[in-house]
């Protein structure tokens, strides 16, 4: 199993401390700025489009089980479902994992209840399709085509099926907003979707949408952590370059401390 070396462990603890510090400062009422993320702002536009067209929306939480990307996708689903319930717009959520299906069903039910329209919730709109990758993809393609989906949201961890879903969404004329932490799938979403949330913007989504102080604080803490990493990288580049000129100065190779230790 993977274990932290002392420098890596210390670095992780520093990053955690920074994030926690900013979370608690935000909770104490410190106001924090968050820049506009076009992809996340487009979510409301996509819901509005589906409402105006009187057609349903589709939300895919990806192919992963209940992991961090899926939890993040579900928190975005909560936001979308709440607005959809307010405007009485139908949202179909196909899932490929039975645990995710259960949580998605609960989230949707709660959103409709909170908006005072529990009777609008249709259990058939939250569907478990299959845990097989391409069976799930073909199920989603079927929904996109049959239901004439007006807006499609693809949030979560995707694999090769990402292009199938995004291209089919494009073919049926759906407005698409996609976000994934899967680096290899981001190019496909950029190509086929109208808006794509790239990299860590995906994990910033819940903070951006809810504006909740804890999440905003965490986001600012993440930025500080990234600044620490950038400083380490720049210092590492300088020291490693100098080590080429001064091989006897062993301390210049301190970047090697962060390399994994072979067991």
């Amino acid at each position, binding site marked *: *199993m993977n274990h932290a070396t002392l420098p890596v462990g210390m670095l992780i603890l520093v990053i*955690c401390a920074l994030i926690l510090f900013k979370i608690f400062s935000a909770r104490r009422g410190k106001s924090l700025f968050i820049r506009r993320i076009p992809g996340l702002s487009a979510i409301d536009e996509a819901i509005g489009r589906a409402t105006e067209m009187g057609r349903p929306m589709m939300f895919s939480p990806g192919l992963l089980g209940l992991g*961090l990307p899926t939890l*993040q996708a579900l928190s975005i689903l*909560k936001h979308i479902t709440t607005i959809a319930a307010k405007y009485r717009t139908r949202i179909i959520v196909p899932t490929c994992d039975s645990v995710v299906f259960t949580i998605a069903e609960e989230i949707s039910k*709660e959103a409709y209840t909170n908006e005072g329209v529990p009777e609008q919730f249709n259990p058939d709109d939250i569907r478990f399709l299959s845990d097989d990758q*391409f069976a799930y993809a073909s199920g989603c393609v079927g929904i996109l085509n049959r239901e004439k989906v007006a807006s499609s949201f693809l949030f979560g961890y995707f694999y090769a099926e990402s292009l199938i879903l995004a291209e089919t969404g494009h073919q049926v004329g759906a407005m698409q907003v996609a976000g994934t932490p899967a680096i290899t799938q981001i190019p496909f979403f950029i190509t086929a979707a109208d808006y794509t949330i790239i990299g860590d913007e995906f994990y910033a989504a819940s903070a951006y949408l809810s504006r909740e102080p804890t999440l905003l604080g965490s986001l600012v803490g993440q930025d500080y*952590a990234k600044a620490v990493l950038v400083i380490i990288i720049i210092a590492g580049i300088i020291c490693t370059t100098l080590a080429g000129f001064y091989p006897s100065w062993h301390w210049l190779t301190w970047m090697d401390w962060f390399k994994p230790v072979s067991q």
Partner: protein
Amino acid sequence: MYILATLKTFLLKWFPIFTHGMLKPGAPWYAWLGGIIGDFLIIGGILFLILRMVPARYRKSLIALLTFLGGVPYALEFFWPASKGGDNFLSLFVRQIGDGTNVLYSFALGLGIFSLMRFHANNLIRKRPGWHNNLAFFVAFFTMMLAGFANSVHHNAVNSNVFDMLFGGIVSALGSTMFSTIGFFIVSAAYRAFRIRSGEATLMLAAAFVVMLGQVPVGAWMTSGIPENGVWANLRLENLSYWILNQPNMAAQRGMYFGIEIGALAMALRTWLSLERGSFFEKEL
């Protein structure tokens, strides 16, 4: 250290209760199945009872405490130095928690199957448009299930062939067919992406052109006149392609990785310490 070792021995001996305490190796499959269900019901029942007994205002704190305790072995296992074998004293325990989680996870599959059945049965009973597809689902579901059970309970040539024909001949083939459609989708997506609309799109088109040409023999042939060594060798298409993929592209990918991993770490920290609010964690219990 001694306390942790004792706790580990205790947990391994008594949890799960049925499968470790009552079943012996070689017990029939139904005994194992019953044991697992028994473990699930007993542990789940105890947790549910505790949750119901605790006053409503302390329930969130209890869940926060249990969440924290659930994450402690993973965090400790990661930070505790490993021995030469690559494991430490908690590694086995963490693996066993993972196995237990898988068992719990498998119980949820029933909920998924119920959802599928409900959806298709509703459409079939009401004879909604496309009801024959819903009927096809039931036929496929029960045929595959029967073939799977028959093959595992009475493994003979007939059952094995039927199962292989259904799984290898139909399910896998359908998956491969779906996968192959990506080839067509890539063409249509690439056409849109590579249309020259802006400076960025032009740059991407040029980079993609060089990378694609550098990957195929004709690309190497086109610049084969350039010497293989020296400064000019950098202009050979295969070298340009390699440089684009491994320098600017890799740097951008690693930049994204840093952001994603720190985002994931922050979310894991918030979930572990029950700091998450504003999404689906604010529900009253």
